[in-house]
C-alpha cells in the first residue's frame, strides 16, 4: 500500500570482534510504497548505510533465512509488514549468537540437527529398499509438520530457550525430531534429542506455534507428540505420573486439604430474575486453592441474572494429562466430564482458568454432529462478561493502578487478549498500565519439572510487574496467579495478584454469601 509516511527505525548494530557492545542506529525513513520489513532493510542498505548486515534470499517466505525480531517479535522480514508503531525496532533473532548486526550464527541448530540426522535414517544407505506403502492417514502428522522452513522463529520466541539454551533442545529441534519420527519409514537409533535435551522443560506457552510463519502447531503436534513416547512417559516425575490416579480418586489434580469449592456451594445458584443459565467450571485450582476467586465469580454471575450450575461431579479438565503426553488417560476424563455437562441440560460453560478453557475448547469437542458437547458455547469469564455487559459505577475512590499478565493458555491457547484489557479499561476506578512482555510465560507449568527454570521465568515476570509500579496485577489463570504471587512475595511491596472476578468484587461487589450445601 502506498502511503506517505515516515518510519522511525532503530536497528541493532554489533560486530562482536570490533565493537565493545551493541548499539542502535536510528533512521527516519520515508516509506512510501514499502510494505514489508525486508523492503525497509533494503532501502536502508541502499540509501542510508551500506554496512548493514542482514540475510535475504527468496523474498517470498519459502527459504526462512531472513528472520529477525521486529518490536520484540520474531518474524520473517519478507513477510512481516512494517508496523504502524511509533518506533520500529529491528534486532537479530533472539537466542542465537550474533555474527554481525542482524545476521546470526545457526551453528548450534545445525550441529544438533546433524546429530539428529545421524541418529535416523531410511535404510541407512542400503540400496534396493522399496518405497513403503503409504496411505494418507499414516502420514497426517507428517503432513502437519512438513512445511517447516527452519526459520528459527520458534526458537527465538521460546522463553525457556532464552534461559537455558545449552541444556534445552528448543522447539525447532523438537519439530524436526517429531517430523522424522512421524515418517514411518525412518529407523531410529541412539538417544534422541528430546531425550537428551530436556523435552520436559517446555512450559506449554505456545509462543512457538503462535509465531510460526508456516502455522505449524509446534507445541501441540511436535512437543506433545514426542511426549507420548514411552521413553518420555517412563521418565515423567512421579507427581505427573500419578495425575490420572489422583483424579480417579479425588476428581482433582491434588489431594484435597480443605473442603472443595464445589462441595461448599450448592449445585444450582439461582438469581432473583433469571436471564440465562450457565455451568461454571472452576477447575482444580479454584476448586481447592483459590476458592475466594471462585466464589467472587459465582456471585458476580448471580448478580447479573445468571442461573449458575455447579454439578458436583465435575472433575479435573484433564489438560495437564494431555500436555504431558498422557492422551489415553485424558480420554476417560473427558468422557466423564462431558457426561456430567450433558446431564445438566444447559449448553453453556463458563471458565476462568486459562488452561481449563483451552482444553475444553480445543480438546473436548469433536466435529461429529452427534456429539452434543460440540454444540456447547464455551466462554472464558472475560468473554462472558462481554456478553452480559455489566456496568459499574465509580466509587469515587483513588484509582487503582493495575496491569495485566496474559496467561499463555488464554492469549495463545484461546486467542483472548483484548477482552480482559477492554474490561480493565472499562472499570471506572481502575488505571490500566500495559505490562512489559505481558505475554511472556510466567513459568507456572514448570514448577514440578525444574524449580530453577520456573523461578527464573517468574522472576522476570515479577521484575516487569515491579517496574510497572502498580497496586495489583490482574491475570485470568490460577496457575499464573499462584506462580506470580510466589515470585512477588519476595519483594517488599508484595503486589497482589488478582483474577478479574476478585478485582470486581473488591471494587464494586458484595461479599459472596457463604452458602449451604443444600441444592435449591
Amino acid at each position, binding site marked *: *500500500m502506498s502511503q506517505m509516511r515516515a518510519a522511525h527505525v532503530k536497528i541493532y548494530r554489533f560486530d562482536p*570482534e*570490533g565493537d565493545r557492545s551493541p548499539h542502535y542506529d536510528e533512521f527516519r525513513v520515508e516509506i512510501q*510504497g*514499502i*510494505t*514489508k520489513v*525486508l*523492503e525497509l532493510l533494503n532501502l536502508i*542498505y*541502499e540509501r542510508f548505510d*551500506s*554496512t*548493514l*548486515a*542482514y*540475510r*535475504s*534470499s*527468496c*523474498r*517470498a*517466505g*519459502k*527459504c*526462512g*533465512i531472513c528472520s529477525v525480531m521486529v518490536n520484540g517479535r520474531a518474524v520473517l522480514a*519478507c513477510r512481516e509488514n512494517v508496523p504502524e508503531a511509533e518506533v520500529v525496532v529491528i534486532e537479530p533473532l533472539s537466542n542465537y549468537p550474533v*555474527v*554481525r*548486526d542482524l*545476521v546470526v550464527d*545457526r551453528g548450534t541448530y545445525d550441529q544438533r*540437527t*546433524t546429530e539428529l*540426522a*545421524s541418529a*535416523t*535414517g*531410511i*535404510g541407512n*544407505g542400503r*540400496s534396493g*529398499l522399496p*518405497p513403503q*506403502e*503409504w*496411505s*494418507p492417514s*499414516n*502420514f497426517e502428522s*507428517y*503432513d502437519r509438520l*512438513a*512445511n517447516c*522452513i*527452519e526459520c528459527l522463529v520458534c526458537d527465538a520466541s521460546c522463553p525457556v530457550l532464552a534461559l537455558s539454551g545449552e541444556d534445552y533442545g528448543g522447539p525447532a529441534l523438537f519439530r524436526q525430531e517429531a517430523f522424522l519420527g512421524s*515418517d514411518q*519409514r*525412518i529407523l531410529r537409533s541412539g538417544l534422541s534429542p528430546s531425550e537428551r535435551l530436556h523435552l520436559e522443560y517446555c512450559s506449554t506457552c505456545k509462543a512457538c506455534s503462535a509465531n510460526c510463519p508456516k502455522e505449524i502447531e509446534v507445541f501441540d503436534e511436535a512437543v506433545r507428540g514426542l511426549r507420548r513416547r514411552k521413553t518420555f512417559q517412563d521418565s515423567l516425575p512421579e507427581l505427573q505420573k500419578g495425575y490420572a490416579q489422583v483424579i480417579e480418586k479425588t476428581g482433582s489434580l491434588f489431594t484435597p486439604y480443605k473442603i472443595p469449592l464445589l462441595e461448599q456451594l450448592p449445585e444450582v445458584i439461582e438469581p432473583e430474575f433469571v436471564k440465562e443459565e450457565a455451568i461454571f467450571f472452576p477447575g482444580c485450582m479454584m476448586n481447592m486453592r483459590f476458592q475466594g476467586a471462585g466464589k467472587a465469580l459465582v456471585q458476580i454471575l448471580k448478580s447479573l441474572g445468571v442461573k449458575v450450575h455447579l454439578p458436583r461431579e465435575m472433575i479435573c479438565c484433564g489438560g495437564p494429562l494431555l500436555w504431558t503426553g498422557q492422551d489415553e488417560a485424558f480420554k476417560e476424563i473427558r468422557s466423564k466430564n462431558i457426561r456430567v455437562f450433558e446431564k445438566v441440560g444447559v449448553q453453556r460453560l463458563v471458565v476462568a482458568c486459562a488452561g481449563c478453557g483451552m482444553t475444553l475448547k480445543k480438546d473436548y469437542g469433536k466435529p461429529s454432529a452427534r456429539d452434543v458437547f460440540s454444540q456447547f458455547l464455551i466462554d472464558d469469564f472475560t468473554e462472558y462478561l462481554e456478553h452480559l455487559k455489566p456496568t459499574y459505577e465509580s466509587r469515587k475512590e483513588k484509582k487503582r493502578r493495575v496491569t495485566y499478565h496474559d496467561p499463555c493458555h488464554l492469549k495463545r491457547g484461546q486467542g483472548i487478549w483484548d477482552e480482559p484489557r477492554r474490561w480493565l479499561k472499562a472499570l471506572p476506578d481502575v488505571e490500566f498500565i500495559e505490562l512489559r512482555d505481558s505475554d511472556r510465560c510466567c513459568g507456572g507449568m514448570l514448577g514440578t519439572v525444574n524449580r530453577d527454570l520456573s523461578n527464573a521465568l517468574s522472576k522476570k515476570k515479577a521484575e516487569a510487574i515491579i517496574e510497572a509500579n502498580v497496586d495489583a496485577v490482574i491475570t485470568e489463570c490460577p496457575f499464573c496467579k499462584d506462580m506470580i504471587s510466589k515470585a512477588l512475595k519476595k519483594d517488599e511491596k508484595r503486589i497482589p495478584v488478582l483474577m478479574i472476578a476478585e478485582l470486581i468484587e473488591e471494587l464494586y461487589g458484595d461479599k459472596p454469601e457463604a452458602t449451604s450445601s443444600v441444592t435449591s
Partner: protein
Amino acid sequence: MTNKKPSLDILDTDVLVVGGGGAGMMAALAIAQQGCRVTLVDKGIPSKGCATLMAKQMAAAGPWSYPQDSPEKHMQDTLASGCYINNRALVQVFVTQAASTIEELERMGMLFEREASGKGFFPGGQPAGHSYPRSLTYKETSGKMVIDALRRQAMRRGIQMVPDVLTIRLLVEENQIRGAVCWNITRGEIEVIQSKAIVLATGGCGQLYPMTSNPDQSTGDGYILGFEAGAELTDMEMFQFYPVSMVYPKFLRGLNINFPGKLLNARMERFMEKVDPVNLEHVTRDKLSQAIYREIKKGLHTAHGGVYLEASNFDPELYRKRFPTEYRYCLEAGIDLKKDRVEVAPAAHFMMGGIKVGPDCRTNIRGLFAAGEVTGGLHGANRLANNALMEIFVFGKIAGTHAGAFAREEKEKVPPRGLVEDAKREIQFLFRPKKDAIRGFALKGILRELMWDKVGVIKNMPMLEEGIERFQEMRESLLPRLGVDVSHKKYNHDIVEALEARAMVKLGLLMAQSATMRKESRGAHALEGYPQQDDQQYLKNVVARRKANGDGEFMLVPVPGAS
C-alpha cells in the same frame, strides 16, 4: 619482491562443489560415495539460498506413468519443447535415469505423494508440452522437501557444507583444474581452495532482469566462472520467462502463479483466442510469455504494466488446498480471486543455456564438471515445465560420480601462485577509494533495465546491437568505478553485490552477443524480423568461448546427434 610465505590459508579437498542447491547437494553425496573428500560451498546458507526451494514438481516417466507413457515419450516431449536443438545425449540420459533417480531420492528420505490406494506414486501434474501426466510432487513444496532430505543425508555422511563463501575465480593451469579463489563473507577474507576437481552447480541468472522468480543469489556467477576458466558455453541466447508472474504489489513481484485462468488485456480481450484458438492459455512458456509481452508492448497493459489473470472456476476450498501460498498471498494483498483479477507479466525464470557438458557432466576443462541450471543443452530452446527439478538430481549425481572417480585418479597439485594473486588484486581493486564510485546494487539496477529493454522477451537486432554497445561501455567505464564501503570487511554485503555485478555485466554481454548469432525465431528466442524457425541454417547451437583478450567468440555448431 621478497619470498614471503603466503598469508592465506589454503583449504585442501578432493572435490569442490560450488553451490548448495539440489544439483550441488546431490553431487556432494555422489562424491562422498566415491570415497573422496568433498567440500560444498554456497554464498548463502546451503540448501536455503537456492531456486530448488521454489520448485514444485518433477517430471519423470516411470512405473507410475500412464501405460502409453515412456522415457521415449518424455524425450520426444522434451525435444519438441526445445525445438530440437537440445543435446540428444543429455536428453537420453535424462529420461532414462529419471525414474531411478526418483526412487533413489525416496531412499534418501524424500516422500512423494501416493495415489489414493497408497501403492504407487501419484503423477499429478501435466503442464503444457507433456503428453501425459508424469510430474511427481509432495503437495506444493517438493523442491524444499527433497533438498531437506538431501541435506540430512549429507549430514549423516559428514559432508562439509560451508555457508557464506562466494567463489570468484577458478584456478586452471594447463587446462586442468587446480582449485578456486573465494571470498569468505563471514570472515571478510580471501580463501583459496585447492582441489583436484570442481563441480559447478551455481544455478541460474534471473537476477539479471528487473522482475524474477529467482532468489537473490541467482546472479549467474557460475557461467562466468566457467567462461573465464576457458569452458565453453552453449545456447546463451535461450532464456525462459515465466509468463504468469505477479507484477503487483511490489513485494510479490516475480511470484509465479500456478492456478489456471483467462488472460485479458486492458481492453478485457482474451488475446490468446487470436494467438492460439485451440489451446488458449495452455501453451508452452515461450509462446505464452511472448504473447503477453506483445500485448504489453502494444500498450494494452494494466496500471502496473502487466495483463489481467482471471481465475477460472474459482473455488476457495480448492485454491486453499492446491495453491495455498498463492491464495493466501493474494488475500493478504487485498486480492479476492472470486472477483478481482491479478496483474501478471513475464518474469525472468530459467536459463536454458549455460556451460557445455557431455552426458558425464564433463566440460572441456579437465577436472571441471557442471550440473543443473548452470549447464546448457538439455532443454534446447525452451524448457519443459517440471524438467528442471528433475534435471538437477539426475545430473547432480552424474557429475558427482564422475568428479569423484576423476579425483581418485588425480594427483594433488598446489594452485599456481600467480592466479591467486590475480584474484586478490581484483578484490583489492574494489577496496581502493575512487572518484564517482558506483555501488554494486546501483550497477545491477542499470544492468537490469538494459536487459529487459534490449535482451528481453522479444528481441530485435538493432536493440541487441545497442545492448551490446551499452554492455561494453559498462564493462569499460562502469566496472572500474565499482566501489565498496570498507569500514567493515566482515559480512560486507556491498562486496558481494559488487562481485556479483561484475559477473552480471559480463554475462549480459554474452547473452546479447549470443542472441545476434541466431537470425531466426526458435523457442524462447523470438527475434523480430525473423519470425520463422530456419532449420536449414540454424539447427545448430551457438557456442561461446573466451578469447585471449577476454571477449567472447561465438560459433554455430551443428546439434550433436541431430540428423
